């Protein structure tokens, strides 16, 4: 029996594509996909996205070398963008940290407002996000993050 709806199936598709679903769940997803072109289309897209990204040659050894030399913060890859970026990275790291901390604080503060909490809880409970339009999803996101 095909007992999964589209929303639940779509939520399980990343695990299905990775092959990490347990037997019963995998069979139910497969059964749903066999009769649902929309979900099958999304499953195909996910399989296209699961392409390997190759680690650039030499990157691992460069990082290991930097670790071995103890230059954990200063070591930069020579020759590509030079050392100018290294000089600005410390500043950028602090800046991005502050920005993100500020965003997090804002999020916590937002979580205190009942409207946003309600929106977030609704999102967590709702199995049907994939059925919403792009505009509705954007509005929902704004409500959560406002």
């Amino acid at each position, binding site marked *: 029996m095909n007992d999964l709806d589209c929303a639940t199936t779509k939520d399980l598709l*990343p695990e299905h594509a990775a092959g*990490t679903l347990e037997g019963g769940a995998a069979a139910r997803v497969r059964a749903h996909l066999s009769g649902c072109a929309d979900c099958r289309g999304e499953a195909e*897209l996910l399989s296209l*996205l699961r392409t390997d*990204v190759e*680690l*650039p040659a030499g990157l691992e050894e460069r990082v290991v070398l930097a670790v071995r030399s103890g230059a954990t*913060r200063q070591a930069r890859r020579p020759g590509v963008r030079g050392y100018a970026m290294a000089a600005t990275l410390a500043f950028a790291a602090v800046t*991005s940290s502050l920005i993100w901390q500020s965003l997090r604080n804002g999020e916590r503060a937002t979580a205190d407002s009942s409207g946003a909490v309600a929106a977030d809880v609704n999102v967590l409970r709702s199995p049907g996000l994939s059925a919403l339009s792009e505009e509705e999803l954007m509005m929902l996101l704004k409500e*959560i993050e406002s």
Partner: protein
Amino acid sequence: MSPAPVSEAALIDRARAGDRDAQEVLVRQHLRDVYRVAFRVLGDRDLAEDAAQDAMLNALAALDRFRGASSFRTWLLRIAMNSALSIGRRKTRRREIALVTEQHDTPAEEDAENSAVAKSEAARAAEQLKRLPPKQRAAVELRVNQGLSYAEVGEVLQCSEGAARVNYHLGIKRLRELMQ
């Protein structure tokens, strides 16, 4: 007899104490995921290399601040995300990031026609993925390729689980439209 496997917690403790061997093991275990997230966010190999290296070295230097509230991998990917966004913001101010795909960098010598078609479709998907806003792109990458739950995606993106979920669905929806 092979040596007994070392738990990740023990490895992190040793790395935190300055053990270079343990730090090297962590680099070799996680650099690929770190680079992958950076590449998906930035869409540029050179920038992603910088971001990955920066994230890995900064993470090892900041191990004292890892409390184990989330998994080490999630914590590390959050640093990678921050590093990539930081580099991306600076780069965007100077110029638009070039749309470069992995596939364009490798010689295209495909024998089987089906394989070539599949590869070009994958390349197109990778290309269209770059047109999404960074958070949606990252949510898709973290969910589809890194196998993270919505709660973990939220930890990496430093947003709520609900926002992570909406970002993922928005990303997939837009991507499907772009692929049509």
